[in-house]
């Protein structure tokens, strides 16, 4: 048993960094039992841990396998803590991102990492999955009243579908309502400019920085 709340938060954070899913679950249960504020446990425990994992990823100490297992631990803890969030914490309007891999491609690890890191940074993420037609991005962004549309691909054949998303937004005069960001192997900042996207990122941590910038929150 942890002596105080700070120790428990640290232990939660360490469980995420250490890829210990069972331990994260157990510590989250302990937080619930001890009636520790769920929001604080998430922020200072799980989210803190995922942030540290992201830093290890950036410094190439962690790679995709480790980051995925860290996220498994984070989500295991979140599943337990989320139902205990106070209503005002749970219903707070958060910056919303619609994300997916564009039509014609099923490589989704990069997209999944961006989703994980965005969720760990407090953004609402609607994950459409992979092989998603341009119209579905637009429709979902409208119906969900999203702030950002995030498009991913690893294939050059599907890059045109990214441009099509922007064009569809323009045609229906709703371009200004959304920020469109792009990423993936063949994508470059020049390509992002050419299709009139609002931003490009070359890694999951940088995608988070980009969304934070677009959302106007401090990095």
């Amino acid at each position, binding site marked *: 048993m942890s002596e105080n709340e700070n120790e428990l938060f640290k232990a939660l954070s360490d469980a995420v960094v250490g*890829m210990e899913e069972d331990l994260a679950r157990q510590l989250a249960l302990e937080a619930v039992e001890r009636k520790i504020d769920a929001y604080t446990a998430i922020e200072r425990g799980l989210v803190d841990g995922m942030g540290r994992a992201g830093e290890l990823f950036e410094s*190439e100490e*962690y*790679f*995709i*396998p*480790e980051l*995925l*297992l860290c996220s*498994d631990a984070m989500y295991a803890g979140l599943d337990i803590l989320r139902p205990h969030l106070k209503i005002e914490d749970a219903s707070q309007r958060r910056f919303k991102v619609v994300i997916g891999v564009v039509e*014609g*491609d*099923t*490589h989704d*690890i990069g997209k*999944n990492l961006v989703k994980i890191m965005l969720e760990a940074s407090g953004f609402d993420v609607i994950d459409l999955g992979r092989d998603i037609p341009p119209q579905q991005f637009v429709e979902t962004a409208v119906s969900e009243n999203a702030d950002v549309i995030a498009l991913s691909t690893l*294939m*050059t*054949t599907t*890059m045109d579908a990214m441009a099509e998303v922007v064009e569809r937004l323009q045609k229906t005069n709703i371009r200004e309502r959304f920020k469109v960001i792009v990423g993936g*192997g*063949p*994508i*470059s900042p*020049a*390509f992002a400019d050419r299709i009139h996207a609002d931003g490009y990122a070359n890694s999951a941590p940088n995608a988070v920085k980009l969304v934070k910038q677009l959302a106007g929150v401090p990095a």
Partner: protein
Amino acid sequence: MSCDLMTPVERFAAYGRSEAVDRLPCVPIVGNTAARVVGAKVSGFRGNGKLIADAQVAAYRRFGYDVIRIFTDLYTQAEAMGATVHYPDDETAYLAEPAIDSADQIGSLEPANPYKDGNLPHHLEAMSRAVEAVGKEVAVTGALTGPFTTASFLIGTETLVRLMLKNPAAVHQLCELALQGALAYAKAILDRGCTPSLTDAMCSTTVISPKQFKEFGQPYLKRLVDFIHGYGRGVTLHICGKTRSIWEQMADTGADCLSIDNAADLLEAKVKVGTRVRLMGNVSPSEIMLQGTPLQVRDAVRQCVWKAHDNPKGYIVASGCSLPVETPFQNIDAMLESVREIGWPVHAEKLEAAWTV
């Protein structure tokens, strides 16, 4: 079109002996772009070895590059072992579903039989036909996907990378199966007078760590390379994305040539492994070859040559990865033209002046 004085076979032979050549070897890695040369749809390649061969031979004749590579996508071996591949009407195929979704199903898989399973027999037919048509003048290679990458297509990449940490024995079991399939296919390729050309995309440190590559990627690649060397053939190994921290390990597989993606730097590669392996690359397939102008291609080629022409084991001007289907012909021509213009021997000072002004 081409005004070369040597055939690709003559050029590689002379270059390998450090004798005079007419120009550096040059390989824009043409895959499904070959469909555009013969006015076919990409999906037409499915199950049609004759069309693959016709297109690849036509593309070789059209552009005059130095290696023909029979390749449509990375999934052929995984498909032959049960993965589901989606074939869009006129674009490169992609993985729809892996063959299995958990470690306890690995036992249900069998190594592919290259003469029977999936599209492998058609690819072998394409190799035979290409060799018959132009094999005397140009090397015909058969694309061979590395065991770790095939394993990722068999069970799904996320499942595989999680298993690396949770159940490494299962990953080895799957890689071993994929290796057995790859060895059988390699033998069939070699029996046709072709050389397997290895790609192990998922071994990139964009995905896994150098340590994980050492455990799950490298040993299987080494066994494949050893097998191919047993036939007296040289081996090119391509890994996409970031590879800087695994170049030594890639060289340790025994591969004779490393094909390097544009995410890596040729100058650094030359310093690190240039005394052990030939280098190939690394003009950006997307930013330069697909989206750039012929002038940008020319600049990129000159930069690459400037960096790597004096690599101790030699250098092949190439794209960093397979070219996108819609790569403009004029950009492929520009790559070859630039290499011809640079000629041989290479005068580095002239190159520097050309692309810094």
